[in-house]
Every structure is written in structure tokens, then in C-alpha cells.
């Protein structure tokens, strides 16, 4: 199926490890089908690199269906490339034209150090979750699911916040490398539900403290995160987190 296939030039960030200085390398991607995903295009390039004895390009991926959040790539100046509401694995090569030069960079954030090439270490997100992104539940038999009644609009809103896949595109897109959208989605998905309300005050204080500790920047409400989020997480979550934080802080005894 060579018909309609494209030849592209890739400018990709190459970096040996966390401590080395990286630089851009240029690669040719020949005979790329418009039906391939962006990651499949990288697979083709990598196969060619391997068969010619060169080192392949390291990048993160797992599910390849837009739910794991691993496929972090900053493509032509935007996280996850030119399409809205998709991850890199869901981005198709038909979004590009034959002859295009595509610049691919890793997420840039002090809190996301590069592991190798395009792969970054997002364990800062895990530490934020560990600081408060949970509810405490007694062990024993599972309770009946409908024991606690939850108004449908609240459940929907919590569900929308819970759609966040922790990909970090919000941080990558933000001119301040702020993690407010991610953290606010995680705060909101619990704060909106009765089970989460019990620990809501402490949660928001602890999660924000950990976020600051990790070295994420300060939000200036540009809205770039919301626009680039593959799960369209709303800025309303950030307002909710600000509100929760201000109130919890004012009432805090510490």
C-alpha cells in the first residue's frame, strides 16, 4: 500500500540518560502510511534504525488506546501533537503532510526529568497521589455499592474529573510547567463524593504541598492545560481546588 504514503523528516530529542546533555537528531521517516498512528510511525523508524545497527529512539507507551497516559511527546510545539482531545498513540499520520518536518521533544519540566530521549520520569505525580489522592476504607466485606446515595450530577462531575489519565500533558503545555490541572482533577474526583469528603481538607493541603515540593510552576490561568488535555479535564477543577485549598487553609489548626 505505497499509494499515498508519506516521506517525513523527524527532528527528535536524543539524550543518553538523566544527567547527560541531549541534542536534536534528524531522521528520515520514509513510506509512512497515513493510517498509522504516530507511535507506529516511530516503530517503523526504530526498526530501520535497529536493522542498520543504530540506536533506536526511546519513547514511552503502553496501552496504545488512549487510556494509560504513557505516550508523552511534545510534537511540533504541542503536547500530543496537533489534534485536540487525543493522546499521541491516537494521533494518526494523516494529520501530517508529505514532506513535513516534525519536531519531537520530551515533556519539559523540572519535575519530569528525562530518563532517555523522549521518556520522562513522572513519579512526581505518584508522590502527589500518595500524599492524599486516596480514601481510607475499613477492611472487611465490601459495602453495598448503593449504600450511600450520590446525586447524579455530582457523580457525573466526579467521573469527568476521574477521566484524567495522569499523562502530564497539562504540565507540558503550561508556560509555567504547572501541575494544577492534574492535581485539581485528582482532588475533585474525591472531593465531589461523600466518601472523599471526610478527608477532603487534609487531602487538598497535602497534595498541593507535595505539588509545590516537586517543583511544578505556578498557574497563571492561561488555560493551555485544558485545551491540550487529551481527556478535556475542565478548568473548573482548578477553581474548585483553589476554593478547597483556601477554605481548608483558613480552617487549618496547624
Amino acid at each position, binding site marked *: 500500500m505505497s499509494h499515498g504514503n508519506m516521506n517525513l523528516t523527524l527532528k527528535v530529542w536524543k539524550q543518553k540518560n538523566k544527567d547527560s546533555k541531549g541534542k536534536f537528531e534528524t531522521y528520515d521517516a520514509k513510506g509512512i502510511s497515513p493510517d498509522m498512528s504516530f507511535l507506529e510511525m516511530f516503530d517503523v523508524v526504530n526498526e530501520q534504525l535497529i536493522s542498520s545497527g543504530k540506536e533506536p529512539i526511546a519513547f514511552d507507551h503502553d496501552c496504545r488506546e488512549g487510556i494509560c497516559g504513557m505516550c508523552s511527546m511534545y510534537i511540533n510545539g504541542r503536547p500530543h501533537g496537533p489534534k485536540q482531545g487525543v493522546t499521541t498513540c491516537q494521533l494518526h499520520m494523516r494529520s501530517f503532510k508529505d514532506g513535513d518536518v516534525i*519536531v519531537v521533544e520530551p515533556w519539559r*519540566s523540572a519535575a519530569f526529568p528525562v530518563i532517555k530521549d523522549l521518556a520522562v520520569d513522572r513519579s512526581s505525580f505518584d508522590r502527589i497521589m500518595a500524599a492524599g489522592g486516596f480514601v481510607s476504607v475499613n477492611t472487611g466485606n465490601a459495602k453495598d455499592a448503593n449504600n450511600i446515595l450520590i446525586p447524579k450530577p455530582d457523580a457525573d462531575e466526579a467521573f469527568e474529573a476521574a477521566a484524567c489519565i495522569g499523562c502530564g500533558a497539562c504540565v507540558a503545555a503550561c508556560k509555567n510547567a504547572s501541575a494544577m490541572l492534574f492535581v485539581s482533577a485528582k482532588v475533585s474526583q474525591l472531593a465531589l463524593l461523600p466518601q472523599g469528603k471526610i478527608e477532603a481538607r487534609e487531602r487538598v493541603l497535602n497534595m498541593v504541598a507535595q505539588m509545590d515540593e516537586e517543583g511544578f510552576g505556578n498557574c497563571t490561568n492561561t488555560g493551555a492545560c485544558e485545551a491540550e488535555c487529551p481527556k478535556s479535564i475542565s478548568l473548573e477543577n482548578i477553581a474548585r481546588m483553589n476554593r478547597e485549598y483556601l477554605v481548608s*487553609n483558613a480552617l487549618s489548626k496547624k
Partner: protein
Amino acid sequence: MSKGFLKSSIGKKFVMGTTGLFLISFLVVHCFINALIFFNDGGLTFNIGAHFMAKNWLIRFGEIVLFAGLIIHMVQALVLTMDNKKSRPIGYEKIDGAANSSWYSRSMGLLGTLLLMFLIIHLAHFWVKSRFTGLPGEDANGHENLYAVMQETFKQLWVVILYCLSMISLSYHLLHGFQSAFQTLGLNHAKYTPLIKKAGVAFSIIVPLIFAAMPLAMHFGMIK
């Protein structure tokens, strides 16, 4: 309030938002008093307003609070900008900012710096004269004639152009800042947020427009 509040990211934003709203409230007063020139009565009404602002002790005290608010707003902005630089030590090769945000939301620091430069010139034009170096003469009511200083200042074309350009900066700064302050304070509501946003846009256009009309009207002799 816990100890670390002012050092936390949300605490710092809170300070930006509240000082910003405070400065916006000042703009309303400033705009209202100055619009008295449009009575076109040779500045008599305006000078009454100016006289009140200059002599009322409450306003004098408010002026100190205003400068404090302004300085906090600027210093906090500087601190935040430096912080944010540290959060992305290595920048991107290619950035398509226009794809996800407005240019003015990304340029608040630049717009703010332009406004600061304007403010220094503006204070030198009027505030320094009315407070320290003295105003020339009195009007028919025996009030200090700040109006005459305005007329004199706005005779120069470059001043008029500078003021108009600065009001464009102000407009864009407000266009982002107004609604941003509400978001920062967590004041978000399905019913009211669209209203706040509309009010913000209206405010950001109308207030700078009224301000810009003053030097224009004086320079081109629409008000005498």
C-alpha cells in the same frame, strides 16, 4: 491560616488575584472622577473632584494602601515569574502557544511592565505635580487647577499617543486579569462564571476606552 500559606503556589496566586481586584476597584474610582472633565465646564466640576481627592484624609490613607497593593502585585509577579522559570530549566525548541491560549494571557508580565513604565510617566505628569511640586494657579472656584495641567500635558501629541497605547496594554492586561482573579479565588459557578467573564470583557474595553478618550478629547479640542 497555616504558616506556609503565602509560600504555597495557591497562596501566591491568591495574593496576585486579591491585589489585582483591589487595583481594579481603584480604576473604577479613578475613571469616575476623571470623567468629570466631560462636563466640559472648563474643569470646574473636575477640580472639585480633584480637590476632594487631594484633601480627604481617608483618600490620603487609601493612597498609601493603593501603593502598597501595587507594589505587592508587582513584587509577587516577579517572584512567581522567577519561580516558574525554575520549573522549566530547559525550554522547548518549538512552541505553538497560539494553539492553546491567548497571547495576552501568556504576556501578563510584558503587559504589566509596559503599564509600570506608563505609570511612572503618568505619576510624573500629574501626581508628583499635585502632591509635591505644586499646581499652577486656581480656577474660578478657588480650587487648585489640575485641569489646566491636563490641558497643558495633552497638548503634546506624543503624550496622547503614549496614553492611548498604554490603554491598549491595560485593556489586554484586564482582559486576562479580571476573570483570572475570580478563577484564582475559586469563585467559579456554572451560573455566574459566564456573567463574570462577560462583565470582565465589558470592563476591560469600556474603562480603558474612557481613559483614552480624555487625552484625545483634550488634544483635539473636543473639550475646552
